């Protein structure tokens, strides 16, 4: 009981907004995709997810792993297979209809054009086949016709089905206020109970209506009838008003019969309620529950450093954060979701001391900060300057005893370096990397790199990075060695 009271006590306005927004998004998804294949697949996916969670809770390792894999692949397949259906839902409507309703004004006039054209063609006994897709994708049912993309008008429809027109034989597909395709070939119905006077057009219209949620208008060439195929039914329409009503119903523009409206309203309300309950459950599962503690080590990010300045030293590169939150949130938290930043905008050259507070730490929602260690960070800053420094060879090893290195000229003798002012003030010589003496004989050249210490130092553009050492060795006791050589030859 105490936990419930404390839960409601800790309820914030952000949480209410969180639940409301997410529930509404879920609800809109239902409204937009209901009745489509995508929706059915999404339901299947949800069941799959619950099944996977159930398998995990039972400890069925392989089952949960397989289900998880299937779900992941299925998600990808849905997007690929139903791309057109998803596009028709998300693209064909304006922003307002996406967020709120479905009405558009242009359709009414479009319907009038279509109805007029259809009855004109019927009067002239000009055959026609017009498809109005529903929410389902027709790509797999219809053999590709010719893309048209023409705005609907009386003349446009009449000209497409004019007997001398090469494209008059197939079906025209209308979406919104556009004829998107003509000369499309529809699947034929295989029903045997159709009247004998029905021709190929009638069978094609019925064939598509049987397999999809599309509505098809047929104008009979022989009898001049107007028929509407929808949901396995092919019915004659005698009046313009009747056809107009059927088109409006198909496009979701007219108030439907009362019981049907009631049923649909009930479904919508239930969907809204279920969305809220479902999201509240998910929210509760994610954000509440028993407090879990975790310690994460997060690197410190230094922001707004003046371009001329550079960081010489810092007392710590990272801070340890003690965080608390629900088990689910803490488990899912990743270090890159948390940022610890210090603003160096007001920093000065030399030592700067900063205290890490809550304002310096960015945490994901629902995660609380318990403590920080260390809280004090010292940052030493310096101004970047250029300095020309003499170069010296750092010899190592041992020269043979009889040799003496009399000269070592280096090129270049000086190199310009970029680095912190305070560092460069303390440096008066640049040393090469260790150059071994052991193999030196006579005269020769060696190339060596500079050993830049600290690593923050950089060679200025235009300065040579490689140092050439021209050396010369001599015999330590030339006369005695000659004498020895002479005696040896004697």
């Amino acid at each position: 009981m105490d936990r419930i009271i404390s839960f409601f006590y800790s309820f914030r306005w952000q949480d209410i907004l969180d639940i409301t927004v997410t529930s509404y998004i879920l609800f809109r998804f239902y409204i937009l995709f209901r009745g489509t294949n995508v929706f059915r697949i999404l339901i299947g996916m949800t069941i799959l997810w619950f099944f996977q969670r159930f398998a995990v809770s039972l400890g069925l390792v392989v089952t949960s792993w397989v289900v998880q894999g299937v779900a992941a692949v299925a998600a990808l397949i849905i997007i690929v297979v139903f791309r057109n259906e998803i596009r028709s839902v998300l693209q064909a409507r304006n922003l307002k209809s996406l967020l709120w309703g479905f009405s558009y004004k242009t359709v009414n006039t479009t319907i009038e054009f279509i109805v007029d054209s259809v009855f004109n063609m019927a009067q002239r006994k000009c055959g026609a086949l017009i498809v109005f897709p529903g929410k389902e994708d027709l790509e797999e049912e219809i053999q590709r016709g010719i893309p048209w993309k023409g705005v609907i008008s009386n003349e446009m429809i009449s000209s497409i089905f004019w007997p001398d027109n090469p494209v008059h034989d197939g079906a025209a597909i209308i979406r919104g206020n556009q004829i998107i395709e003509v000369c499309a070939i529809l699947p034929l119905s295989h029903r045997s109970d159709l009247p004998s006077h029905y021709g190929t057009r009638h069978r094609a219209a019925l064939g598509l209506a049987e397999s999809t949620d599309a509505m098809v208008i047929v104008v009979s060439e022989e009898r001049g009838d107007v028929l509407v195929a929808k949901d396995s039914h092919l019915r004659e329409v005698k009046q313009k008003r009747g056809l107009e009503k059927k088109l409006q119903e198909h496009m979701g523009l007219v108030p439907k019969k009362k019981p049907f409206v009631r049923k649909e309203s009930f479904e919508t309300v239930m969907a809204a309620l279920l969305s809220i309950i479902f999201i509240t459950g998910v929210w509760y599962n994610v954000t509440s529950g028993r407090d879990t503690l975790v310690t994460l080590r997060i690197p410190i990010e230094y922001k707004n450093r003046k371009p001329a300045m550079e960081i010489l030293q810092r007392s710590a590169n990272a801070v340890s954060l003690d965080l608390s939150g629900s088990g689910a949130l803490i488990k899912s938290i990743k270090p890159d979701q948390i940022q610890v930043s210090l603003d160096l905008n007001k920093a000065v050259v030399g030592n700067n001391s900063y205290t890490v507070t809550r304002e310096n730490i960015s945490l994901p929602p629902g995660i609380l900060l318990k403590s920080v260690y260390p809280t004090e960070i010292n940052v030493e800053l310096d101004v970047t300057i250029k300095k020309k420094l003499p170069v010296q060879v750092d010899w190592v090893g041992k020269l043979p005893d009889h040799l003496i290195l009399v000269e070592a000229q280096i090129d270049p003798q000086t190199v310009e370096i970029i680095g912190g002012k305070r560092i460069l003030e303390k440096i008066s010589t640049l040393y090469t990397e260790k150059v071994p003496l052991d193999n030196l004989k006579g005269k020769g050249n060696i190339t060596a790199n500079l050993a830049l210490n600290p690593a923050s130092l950089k060679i200025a553009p235009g300065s040579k990075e490689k140092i050439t050492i021209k050396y010369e060795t001599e015999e330590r006791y030339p006369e005695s060695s000659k004498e020895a050589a002479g005696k040896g030859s004697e």
Partner: protein
Amino acid sequence: MRQRIVIFFLVFWGGTVFLLQPAASQENKNAAPSVSPESLSLFQAVMCEEISANAPQYQTVIFSVAKEKAICFTSFDTVSEKTFIYHNWFYKDIPSSRIRLVLQPPRWSTYSSIQIRKTDIGPWRVEITDSKGNILHILRFSITD
């Protein structure tokens, strides 16, 4: 009245000169016998292993620890009066020793040396400066195994 003012200023000026003169002469006594850098002309500056007959022997830029000693030899053109110079020895940019050397006519050359130990291995330099600290020359060398 004007005469009194003139006499007062004369007495004041005379007193000031009289009082300051001994202090200035004292400073001169303490001051180093210096020769301006322009007049002190370095003729030779080398690192060597030995000095023989007042001349450097085995000039080199490498000193083995086994040799135990590194010598910096400097020789100047004619020095008209007694003066001194410094040999400042640095090990990796860190001052190691500062040796004051006197140049007294007719002796115009001088040298300083350091004892080499195992811990001295690394790059070295000797800055030769005049009495005022003006760098006349820098010699660079290394102490190796």
